[in-house]
């Protein structure tokens, strides 16, 4: 399975243009990459969020594939209903079986916070679908509020940097590892700047025998405070600093993917985003140090899981 960009350009674009997402937004890039990588035609469920409101304003739609939006928190459940209906329609002989990929896009708010229960339930029930979290670490659609995916120290409109509080006070939830604990066939972290890694993971997710989850970092130029042309650079810095490790858990086997990870201090990534300017420029150095300490610890833990997997694989 090799992915060649020039070949991929021959596939008809399933997500068009004219949508109202901001200039430089990473979300439509990730969506286009996911759709381009799929082998089967998709049926998509969307959570409420930037992607949904900016692409489905009546009477128009940016989508050229079937899409269902119901509410903020329940996209995983919506797609379970679609998948179940498909099975029953085929069983009843009311529809010919055909290859289809059931796909969800939800933001980090929809995934980590409000839709956590719905996603967990759908994964446990084993519906065959791919859940793609477009993670921009906050509620950008409502105006850049903090979510449980927001990094420690980040400025948001509900964690403003003030005289006594340096932005967000808490460490973020490790959603990818929480999902991995559901023991589904495929779980991965990806980043929007690394199209090849992301698309390879989409192909694996599509081929998985059960639910799959891909958590994609999609930097938000408005919310993270960087220039619109820096989206891919910021995504790369998140990976190179170890703030967003690229890895997969395939049938329980943990594996780092792609090279060039964690070769810089976190300060390099933080400095690329003005949401951290209060701690990176004459600010509280202890916050940066704390972020570095936690990133180092999580990286070490991740490496151990990968090494244990490698040992178990070589022994079996």
């Amino acid at each position, binding site marked *: 399975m090799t992915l060649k960009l020039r070949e991929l350009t021959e596939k008809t674009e399933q997500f068009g243009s004219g949508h109202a*997402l901001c200039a*430089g937004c*990473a979300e439509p890039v990730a969506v286009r990459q996911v759709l381009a990588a799929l082998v089967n035609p998709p049926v998509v469920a969307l959570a409420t969020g930037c992607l949904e409101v900016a692409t489905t304003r009546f009477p128009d*739609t940016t989508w*050229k594939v079937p899409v269902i939006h119901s509410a903020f928190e329940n996209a995983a459940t919506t797609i379970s209903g679609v998948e179940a209906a498909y099975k029953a329609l085929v069983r009843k002989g009311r529809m010919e079986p055909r290859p289809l990929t059931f796909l969800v896009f939800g933001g980090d708010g929809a995934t980590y916070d409000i839709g956590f229960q719905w996603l967990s339930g759908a994964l446990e029930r084993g519906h065959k679908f791919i859940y793609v979290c477009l993670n921009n670490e906050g509620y950008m659609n409502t105006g850049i509020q903090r979510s449980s995916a927001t990094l420690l120290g980040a400025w948001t409109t509900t964690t403003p940097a003030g005289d006594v509080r340096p932005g967000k006070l808490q460490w973020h939830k490790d959603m990818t590892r929480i999902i991995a604990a559901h023991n589904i066939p495929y779980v991965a972290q990806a980043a929007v700047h690394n*199209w090849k890694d992301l698309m390879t993971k989409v192909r694996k997710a599509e081929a998985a025998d059960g639910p799959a989850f891909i958590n994609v970092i999609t930097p938000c130029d408005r919310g993270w405070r960087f220039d*619109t042309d820096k989206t891919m650079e910021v995504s790369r810095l998140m990976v190179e600093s170890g703030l967003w490790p690229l890895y997969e858990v395939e049938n329980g086997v943990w594996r780092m993917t792609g090279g060039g990870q964690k070769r810089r201090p976190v300060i390099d990534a933080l400095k690329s985003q003005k949401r951290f300017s209060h701690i990176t420029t004459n600010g509280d150095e202890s916050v940066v140090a704390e972020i570095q300490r936690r990133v180092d610890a999580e990286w070490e833990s991740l490496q151990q899981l990968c090494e244990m997997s490698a040992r178990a694989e070589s022994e079996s």
Partner: protein
Amino acid sequence: MPDEQAWREIAIGGTEINPGSTERVNTGAWRSEMPIIDFSRCTHCMICWVDCPDACFEISDTRLAGIDLDHCKGCGICAAVCPTHCITMVPESSVPVKSSESGA
């Protein structure tokens, strides 16, 4: 204009029945800077195509053919990621190009 349709004339339930129809929206009007491609240095690697938020890179037979300026918002990602630096962002006002024409 569709937004003048009366209640009996529109699809029920808010179902949007024209796939890809946001293409009628000219988001090119958002732009303050415009990408210019120097085709003499373009290797048709398609990194710009795969990283474009607005699906603006026109492809002809797996080769880059131009930019859809009706939809390009001028974010500059393409210029930033181009390995051969053959895309340059220039101020919109400095290039008298009609939006329906190619940016090439």
